[in-house]
């Protein structure tokens, strides 16, 4: 356990949705990259994204030669009719030499323990572990060494949690914001039949329809109107919780969440201080240019904070660079900042 006064730099964990994105992350200072296979075994199962065997082998070689670790996300839930896909994905990960697997399903963790006892296990954010009892239970049962915390805890709650577990805590630092507890949101399957838990997708692109109408541009998800944009208004991807709806007498407002990105640069010294072990950047679905820009900024910020935490302040250029690639071109501290709740 890291002592509360420690200022050891957390690892920077960056997304790799493709080999070029992986190279961007490594070249710009990621300590670790995470990736997934081209199927429903991971929570970014998007068309044209992710890795085949050849690309993984090349990616691992590239990363390892430059001192960067590679994690593989197998973080959806094996489905009753087809559990073999997840198991063979794990066997493959081990053969290829990944440094850790990121898992959500207890049955799959058990398989890892039995078949690959030396494999390092991380508990995915999709495992919805928000409290020390849950986290410590996964450690006792399956020997997980790290947990990725759901984006629902305040900074103080994260601090209290770290004090009660030996499991390393990884937190989200930047990227699109899930307003719901990861692993406990079935809104997407309610509308489209496919969810993060079952298919590794949220508001999947194949269910999206754009329609120009006299009242504006409409975005629909399996027929359900998610948003309508006036002429000249910036249109965003219709993630269903980020649409505008009517509730009571309030019309056309972001009833659940605005399109916005999480950005925790301004609380970086506190994250150091409370002993966060790793900071995760969201965005395997984003471009290599996004990965390069975000990784570069976060590398500089972490190095700056490591050099002198007391004098650390987020530079304006960093915030500008991040806002340029942020969803909705704006950012929030999310649940880390209590009033957001």
């Amino acid at each position, binding site marked *: 356990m890291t002592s509360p006064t420690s200022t050891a730099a957390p690892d920077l964990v960056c997304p790799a949705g493709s080999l070029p994105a992986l190279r961007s992350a490594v070249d710009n200072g990621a300590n670790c990259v995470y990736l997934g296979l081209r199927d429903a075994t991971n929570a970014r199962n998007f068309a044209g994204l992710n890795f085949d065997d050849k690309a993984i082998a090349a990616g691992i070689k590239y990363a390892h030669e430059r001192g960067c670790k590679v994690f593989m996300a197998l973080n959806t839930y094996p489905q009753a009719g087809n559990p073999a896909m997840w198991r063979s994905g794990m066997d493959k990960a081990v053969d290829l030499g990944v440094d850790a697997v990121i898992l959500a399903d207890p049955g799959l963790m058990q398989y890892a323990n039995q078949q690959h006892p030396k494999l390092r296990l991380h508990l995915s954010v999709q495992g919805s572990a928000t409290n020390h*009892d849950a986290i410590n239970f996964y450690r006792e049962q399956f020997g997980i060494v790290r947990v990725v915390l759901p984006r*629902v805890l305040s900074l103080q709650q994260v601090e209290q949690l770290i004090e009660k577990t030996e499991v390393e805590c990884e937190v989200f630092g930047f990227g699109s914001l899930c307003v719901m507890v990861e692993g406990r949101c079935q809104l997407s399957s309610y509308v489209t039949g496919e969810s993060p838990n079952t298919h590794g997708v949220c508001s999947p692109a194949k269910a999206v329809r754009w329609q120009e109408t006299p009242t504006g541009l409409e975005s629909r998800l399996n027929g359900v109107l998610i948003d309508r944009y006036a002429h000249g208004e910036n249109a965003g991807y219709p993630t269903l919780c980020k649409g505008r709806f009517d509730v009571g007498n309030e019309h056309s407002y972001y009833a659940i969440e605005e399109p916005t990105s999480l950005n925790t640069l301004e609380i970086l010294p506190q994250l150091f201080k409370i002993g966060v072990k790793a900071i995760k950047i969201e965005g395997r679905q984003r471009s290599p240019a996004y990965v390069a820009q975000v990784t570069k900024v976060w590398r500089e910020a972490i190095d700056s904070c490591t050099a002198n935490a007391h004098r650390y302040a987020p530079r304006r250029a960093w915030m500008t660079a991040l806002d340029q690639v942020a969803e909705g071109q704006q950012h929030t501290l999310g649940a880390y900042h209590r009033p957001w709740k």
Partner: protein
Amino acid sequence: MIRLSLGPLLYYWPRNTVFRFYEAMAATPVDIVYLGETVCSRRHELRLADWVEIAHKLVQAGKEVVLSTQVLLESGSDVAAMHKVAGNGEFLVEANDMGAVRRLAGKLPFVAGPHLNIYNQPTLQWLASLGATRWVIPLEMKRDDVALLQQERPAGLQTEVFAYGRMPLAFSARCFTARHHNLPKDDCRFSCMNDPDGLTLKTREGEEFLVLNGIQTQSARVYNLIDQVGAMQGIGIDVVRLSPQAHSMNDVVSVFDAARRDAMSPKEAAAQLQKLMPAASCNGYWYGRAGLEQGAPA
């Protein structure tokens, strides 16, 4: 015969309303009643001692009682409250978070709740080995997958299906009801009490889409598997869960009771329920389709 359960009350009702509701439920043919606050720790009309008092009355009326734990545990006090429920020493507990499973595993039998994400045989087997005596399938699980899992079900493990009610689809750190009223969560003024069946969210073309229930988001449509009671018995489902609503809940129970006893045809039962639901019905999940869809598969 398949048993009927009443799921935990998901809304925030005034104390007297809650007591009256369970008095009424005691007189219905429901077999199992799940009790307790599973949504928000700020809700305090009833304390654990009050739930236990209701539990005793229900036991006297011949019901099996289960205490349910809160789904999303964030703070130390959330965890402490869960410990109290898990350690109540008298009633079976429904674990709705792995933290609660940890408190019960190897010590006491428990119900593995619908939010534990049990999608496959090894995970189900694991929970049974820890002491689960019943499990509730995920809301989004389809019939074919339940049927598969039933084939290799661990011995002594009962299966329960959420079969009626607005579905609790998502949980958040944020309170959407307070947000609607422009109130901070820490000073929410318990505004969710104004909405006994939740606060309806509509699309901008007026379609009832979701329901805001504090930190929980529900389907606006009512999941309704009334015409599948026979099919569920056929694949060995043990318990059918009905989720409480503000009005006519005793009539809803009566219709399901008639359906399980074959005293009412599925068609007639479905027609009866249409009159009792707070919104339109849906059954898409059961057929492996979008949850909000309604109708038998093509």
